[in-house]
Structures are given as structure tokens and as C-alpha cells.
């Protein structure tokens, strides 16, 4: 086995092995667990860096393992997969640091970190999937390993949220399986191919391809939280903050959105999908989700719940970008995959800090919290302005390309959606900032804890500050080499260059 075939396997296994070992550690073996966690994280980061460099310079990393007659388990690194691999690996690093601090005194940490590692294994696996079958396997694995994380606290609300999550995602997986089998019977292949592998199919199969597309989008839309499949996400916010970060920014919803991108570009091909007339309804569905999620976020007093509805809205930007079917909008959608992740993880880390340090869960409890926790709220402010799309933050770059893409593709109605959504984003995020910075703080906080020199534990404070800085850097230096924007432009050039 050469290095080029071993690397995709190694990058998946780098979190799998530590994860499996962690399951067998006793609760008291804190140092061993942290060491294994960080070792896995650092090895995976290093391997992802090597792979990114190699893919940029045209290296071909692929491994094929026979699975079924005529069907292999394929792990392959291409430009699109590297966008997701880098995002999930990078954010897993900060989330692991955060989770170590967050769960310092909690029970069942070995179980938690074991599944935590398996979760990123599944995410990287589906990012590197070279065909629909491999994607499906890791997609289902992701469902199974995130369930124990959602129900980790063991409360009635957590169990209910977990049950709902399982019903939704297993159902979605079933649709995906159905579509995959049907597609295989029609074409005899499931390999992801640049510009798709379906355009050569006889026109008699086109109605079936439309139905398969609907099934695929429904199956993937569950994790991407497209309406009406979004119900599980606001409920799942009962999970611990690192899990929320994982669900909203690193793994689950991103897996759904990433899958939709794969289906449109590497299964159907964007031009063929547009010719079937399936991209416009998808763009409309994404637009409805964007507005609906924002409207629902407006109503919520629970901070994490508001952020959850915000995710429903924001993730659909990615779907909208690819469904508009033009190079600029695609860049906007793809770059938002990363930018939304970085911004949303910042907001969830901050929400976790408020809950852990002061016992604050509701926005109405946040009066003057900026004075008590200035670093946390400064990070939150950066993340919130990024979400609104204020320059020079990362969110501005996404919205810029989405807007330009809409004009470029002669779909000006998308601009109205972007304007409406930006207004709503401001309407549900700015009041939080106003409350935190300009209202007078109460005499005492709901459940205040002190952590010495800093406003909270350093392991809780550093991750949001780092991701907030990243939000700024990704916007300000958007054209830097290896930036998500440059990478998205590389991906798009493959799809749209004649």
C-alpha cells in the first residue's frame, strides 16, 4: 500500500483508534483520556494538512476496499472533500479543547469522548467518500454515533430529543438508501464523478431521476434541517454545548448540506440537474427555510434555541448557493459551508460559557453580561455580526458571492431573500448584543461560578476567542492562499470551466 492510498485510510483511522481506546478508560484516567484525545486531534490535523497540500498540487489520494460485488468502499480526496475535511478537522480541534473544559466534572466522560471521536471519524469518512455507497455508510454511522451524545445528560428532555433525532435521521437514511439502490439499478455505478454521471442516461429515465433526486434531497435534507425535516434540530439543543457545536457547525447539519452539494455536482451534474428542472424548486425550498428559520429564531428567548433556528436558516444558504446553479453562487454556498461553521461554533461556545459560568440560558437573563464576561461577549459579538454579514467578517464574503451569483444567474429574487434574511438576522441577533452590552447587570447571576484569573475556565474561553478571530481573518484575508474562498473558487472552476 503506497502513501497515496494509505493517507485517506489513516486520516479516518486517526480518530477511530483513539476513540475506541477511550471507551475502555476509567473515569479517573483523565490524563490518559486527554492525551489520547489531543493525540488523535493533532495527528488528524497534521494528516489533513498534508492531504490539503497534496490535493492542491494535484496529488491523487484514493483507496478502494471491496465491499459488495461490483461496489467498493472508496475513500478519495478531491477539492470538495478537502473543504469539508479541513473544516471538520480544524473545528474538531477547538471543540475537543472546549469539551475537555466543559465536561471537567461531568460523569461518563469516557463514553462521551469515545463517541465524540467516532463522530468526527464518520464525518471525515463521508467527506472523503468516493461513491454514494461509501457516503451512505458513513452518513448512517454519523447518525448512530451522535445519538449517544445528544442523550448524554440522560434527562427526559435529552431522551426525547434523542428519540426524535433518531426517528428523523434514520428515516432520512432510509430514503437515501432507497434512492441509492434505485440509482444503482438504473446506472450500474455510484461513483462520484465531476459534472455527474447521469447526463448520458436515456430520456425515458428522466422522470425516475427526478423522483430519485427528491428522495436524495429528502434524505439529506433531514440532516441539513431543510423544512419540513428540521424539527429535530431545535430539540437537540438540550445536548451539552460541545455537542451543539458538533451538530451545528462541525458534523451533522454540514453532512446534510455537503451531501446535497455532492448530489447536485457529482451525481447529477449542475447542468443536467438544471435541465431536469430540479434546482429551482430546491432553491425555493432553501429560500423558504432561510426565511422560516429566521422568523422562528426571532421568537425564542432560550439562547441555544434561537441559535438552533438560526442554523436552520443559515445552512440553507449553502443549499441555495448550489441550487442557483452559477459559478458565483456556488462559491458563495461552498464558502458558507466553512464560514457558517466557524461563526456558529463561536456562538455556541459563548452560549455554553454563559450557561457554565453564570447559569444563563435565556436572553432575558443576559442583561449587562458583557461587563461580567467581556471576552466571551466580544467573541459572541464578532460571531453575530459575521452571521448578519457585516464586513469585514467571514459572513460578508458568503453573502457577497451569493448576491453576485444571483445577479450573475439572472435570479434577482434571491437578492430579496438575502435582504430579508439579513434583516431578520439583525433583528434576532442585535437585541442580544444590546441586552448584553447596554442593559444594567442584575445584582446576582442565576448560578455564578468563579474560575480565578479569567472570566471563565481558560479551556472554555480560548476556543470562542480563537474562532472569533478566525471569523475576522477569514473575511479580512479572504483571498489568502488556502483560504476557504480560494478553495471554493478552485472547486467551482472544475465544475464550470468549459
Amino acid at each position: 500500500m503506497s502513501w497515496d492510498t494509505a493517507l485517506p485510510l489513516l486520516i479516518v483511522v486517526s480518530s477511530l483508534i483513539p476513540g475506541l481506546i477511550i471507551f475502555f478508560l476509567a473515569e479517573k484516567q483523565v490524563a490518559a483520556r486527554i492525551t489520547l484525545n489531543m493525540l488523535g486531534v493533532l495527528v488528524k490535523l497534521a494528516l489533513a494538512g498534508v492531504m490539503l497540500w497534496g490535493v492542491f498540487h494535484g496529488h491523487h489520494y484514493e483507496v478502494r476496499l471491496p465491499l459488495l460485488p461490483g461496489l467498493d468502499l472508496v475513500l478519495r480526496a478531491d477539492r470538495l472533500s478537502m473543504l469539508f475535511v479541513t473544516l471538520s478537522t480544524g473545528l474538531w480541534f477547538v471543540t475537543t479543547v472546549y469539551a475537555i473544559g466543559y465536561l471537567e466534572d461531568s460523569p461518563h466522560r469516557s463514553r462521551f469522548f469515545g463517541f465524540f471521536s467516532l463522530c468526527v471519524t464518520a464525518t471525515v469518512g463521508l467527506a472523503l467518500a468516493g461513491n454514494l455507497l461509501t457516503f451512505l455508510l458513513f452518513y448512517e454511522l454519523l447518525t448512530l454515533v451522535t445519538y449517544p451524545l445528544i442523550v448524554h445528560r440522560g434527562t427526559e428532555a435529552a431522551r426525547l430529543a434523542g428519540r426524535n433525532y433518531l426517528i428523523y435521521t434514520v428515516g432520512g437514511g432510509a430514503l437515501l438508501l432507497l434512492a441509492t439502490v434505485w440509482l444503482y439499478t438504473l446506472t450500474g455505478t455510484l461513483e462520484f464523478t465531476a459534472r455527474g454521471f447521469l447526463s448520458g442516461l436515456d430520456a425515458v429515465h428522466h422522470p425516475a431521476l427526478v423522483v430519485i433526486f427528491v428522495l436524495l434531497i429528502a434524505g439529506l435534507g433531514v440532516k441539513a434541517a431543510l423544512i419540513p425535516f428540521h424539527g429535530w434540530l431545535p430539540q437537540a439543543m438540550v445536548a451539552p454545548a460541545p455537542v451543539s457545536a458538533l451538530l451545528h457547525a462541525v458534523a451533522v447539519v454540514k453532512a446534510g448540506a455537503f451531501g446535497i452539494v455532492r448530489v447536485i455536482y457529482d451525481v447529477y451534474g449542475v447542468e443536467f440537474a438544471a435541465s431536469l428542472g430540479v434546482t429551482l424548486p430546491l432553491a425555493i425550498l432553501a429560500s423558504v427555510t432561510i426565511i422560516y428559520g429566521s422568523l422562528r429564531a426571532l421568537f425564542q428567548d432560550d439562547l441555544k434555541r434561537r441559535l438552533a433556528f438560526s442554523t436552520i436558516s443559515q445552512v440553507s444558504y449553502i443549499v441555495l448557493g448550489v441550487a442557483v446553479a452559477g459559478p458565483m453562487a456556488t462559491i458563495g454556498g461552498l464558502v458558507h459551508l466553512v464560514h457558517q461553521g466557524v461563526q456558529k461554533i463561536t456562538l455556541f461556545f459563548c452560549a455554553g460559557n454563559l450557561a457554565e459560568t453564570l447559569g444563563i440560558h435565556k436572553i432575558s437573563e443576559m442583561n449587562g453580561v458583557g461587563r461580567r464576561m467581556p471576552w466571551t461577549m466580544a467573541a459572541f459579538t464578532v460571531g453575530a455580526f459575521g452571521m448578519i454579514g457585516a464586513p469585514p467578517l467571514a459572513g460578508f464574503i458568503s453573502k457577497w458571492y451569493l448576491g453576485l451569483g444571483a445577479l450573475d444567474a439572472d435570479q434577482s429574487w434571491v437578492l430579496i431573500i438575502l435582504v430579508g434574511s439579513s434583516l431578520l438576522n439583525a433583528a434576532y441577533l442585535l437585541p442580544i448584543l444590546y441586552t448584553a452590552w447596554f442593559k444594567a447587570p442584575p445584582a446576582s447571576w442565576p448560578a455564578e461560578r468563579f474560575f480565578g484569573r479569567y472570566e471563565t475556565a481558560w479551556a472554555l474561553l480560548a476556543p470562542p476567542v480563537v474562532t472569533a478571530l478566525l471569523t475576522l481573518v477569514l473575511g479580512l484575508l479572504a483571498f489568502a492562499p488556502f483560504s476557504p474562498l480560494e478553495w471554493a473558487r478552485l472547486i467551482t472552476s472544475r465544475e464550470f470551466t468549459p
Partner: protein
Amino acid sequence: MGKINYEPRIHAVNDILSAFLLISVPGLPLLLAFPALHRRLPWPGLIALLPATILLFISADIFIELPWMLLGGGLGIDSVSRWWLAMAVVTWAAVAAFLHVPGGRGACNRLATLFLLTMAGQMGAILATDMVSFFTFMTLMGYAFIGLLVADGDERVRRAGRVYLVLLIFADIALLEALLVAAASTNDLGFAVAAGAMTLSPFSVLYLSMAIAGFALKTGVWPLHVWLPLAYGSARPPVALLLWGVPVATGLFGAVRWLPLGEITAPIPGMLLQAVGAVGILYATLFGLMRAQWIQLPAYVAIIATGMFAMGLGAGLRDPSVWNQYGDSAPVFVVLVGLGLAIMVVGLAWLEASGRIPSGFRKTAGAALWLERWVAAVVRWGCWLGISILPGLRALWLVKWGRLWKTSVWQRAFNAGEHFLQRWVFAITLFLLLGMTFVVLLLLDAMSFL
């Protein structure tokens, strides 16, 4: 021995110094905005102004490109921006001298941070040589200024801030639209090219409409002036000094930069601007100067001045030759109005402090805006006529929509919908999808027999 040619080296050093100076003008206040830095300095506001002051004394026009910044941008100074920069430096220096900022490591220095962030935003906007950089710095300036306005203020000033915030969001959205339209028409968003390129664009009307709307919202041109009387009536005198010099003057500067003045003949937008300006002047004179309280007088003077400026811009859009002939006087006008308003604000503060005019803003915290009053009047009129299709509607809801949303049936309806979705719709959707699949399979089967 041959004579050494030092000229290239001098040019290189000159370029480096120019770049350093231009970046420091917004960069130093931005850096000092970090509490850890400005808490250790005696006069951070004045120190932050040093690069801008030095730049004013360099008579040459200098520019640098910053291709690494955001979508690619630049900073520079020319004869137009020099006027605005001079006014900004004087205004900020005056305010830095008078605004009390708590000192020491333990002090709460929100005010200093917001002060320096606003300054950085304005300095950057004045020096920006392209639309995106201008928009970026102006966004920073706008939101930081709201913080500066409402920090440590009472309910009246917070209300002014909230109203301005809503207008600012709409302004930014309009300007972003204008930016996108410009970017779809030309690859170069530099002021030297973009405005001219928009004259040839099929989107020129949309661009003009969005840019005019955006800057009208930013500057408080009638009828979008509602925040100005509120802000002048409630802000502390040092912050009131900034109201013209920062948000309004920078907005007017933006209008000069963004609109293709002297290059395009746009009679309808021009006429509209002139009409709005004229009505604004009339309104501020009749309803403002006659009825306003002493403390609000500068606001109405500002509305008259922005009305006059809007009329000038309108004349420039109607006839490019007018702008080419008189456009150079625009910065002088803004600076003179700024000077006059500063004297007025300081004078009123002194008169108020010495008890020669009534102290403070008399209206209560919930003083209704004209929009609220008009809607309330329409509702009352409707009720009087017996039209009660909107029972219980209160005009204040228009502004306090957040409360409306929180308490209305909409929230309950959405919640019920969510609940229903969670329980049933997934199953129904699954069933429908499977049904669809089955029907299509039957159809395909039937087609194969044909």
C-alpha cells in the same frame, strides 16, 4: 566613480512611509481600542489621532493598494477627502478633550473602546479608495457609534440609539445592494472607476436608487431624520458634537463618492433629491425651528443642512456641468456647517449649565415619533368612521414589533406547527414520497409497454 542614483531608494522609502502612515490612520485607533492598550495610555483618543494629523500636513495626494484586504481595496487621500479628514481630526480632538473616560485598569472602558472604534471606522471610510473598503469602515463606524451614543445613557438616549440602529440596518442593506449591483457591472470597485462605469450599466437606475436610499438613511435626510432630534435631545454634549461630524458628514462624503456626479445625467433621481431636500428644509424650518426645544435646535439645523446638500446633489445629477462647476464647494459646506453646529452645541450646553435655558429634554422616555403619531391618528380616524377591522391596534406596535411578535398568536401558531411537524409530517412526507415513487414506477412500467 559613478554617481549613485538615490532616487529609487528615496521612492521606495517614501512608498513605505506613505503606506505606514495611511494604514496607521485607521489602524492606530483600531489597535488602541483594545482595553489592555488604551488603559495604559494617558490620552488614548488624542494619541490615536496623531497619524491623521501628520497626514493632513502632507500636501501631496498619496494612495496605496491593499490587495490582501477583504475583496481587494486601498487607502489614500486627495483634495476632497482632505477636507473631511481635517474636520474629523478637529472634531475628534475636541471630543477627546471633553469626553470623560474612566481611567485605570479596573475601570469599565467600554466608552474608550467604542470611541476609538468609531474613530477608526470614520478615518478608514474617509481614506477608502474603493466602495468595499468604504462600506466596511462605515459599517464599523455606524455600529460603534450607536454604542458610543447609548453607552451609560438613559432610556431617552437608548431609544434614539434603537431608532438609529433600525435605520442603519436598512441603510447598510441598501448600500450592500448598490455594491452588488456595481460589482455585477464592473470588476473595479475603486471610486475612480466604479461610479463612472455605473453610468454605462443597465442597472444604473437600481444602483442610484439604492445608493441614494442608503445614504439618505445614514445622514438623516427628511423624512428619515427621526433619530437626529432624539439623539441631539438626549446625548451628552461631547457625543452630540460627533453627531454631525461622524455619521452625517461621513454619509454625505459617501454620497459624493458613490454617486456618479458630474458624469451622468439622471433627471428623475436628481429632481427627487431636490424635492426631498426642499421639503426637508421647509419642514425643519417650520416644524423644527419654530417648535423644537432649545436642546434639539442643532438637529433641525442639521436637517436643513442635509436638505441643502441633497438639493446640491440633485442639481449635480440633473446637470453634470453644475456639479463640475460647483462640486468643489461641497466639502467646504460640510465643514462650515460642522463648525457652526459645534459652536451651537457647546453654546447650548453652556447656556443650559448656567440655567439660562430650560435644562434637558422635556419629553418623556416614550415620546412618540412622527411616524407613530401619524399611524395612531389614522387608526383613531378609522375608529371614528366606524372602521374597526384592526381592533386594538396601537401605532407604537410599528416600532415595538418585537413585543408584538413575542405575544401574538403568530408565535403560538408557529409553535403548534412545529409540534405538528415533529409528530406527523415526517411520517406523512415519507408516505407521500414513497407513494410518488410507486406512481412513477407504475408510469414507467406503463410507458415501457407503449
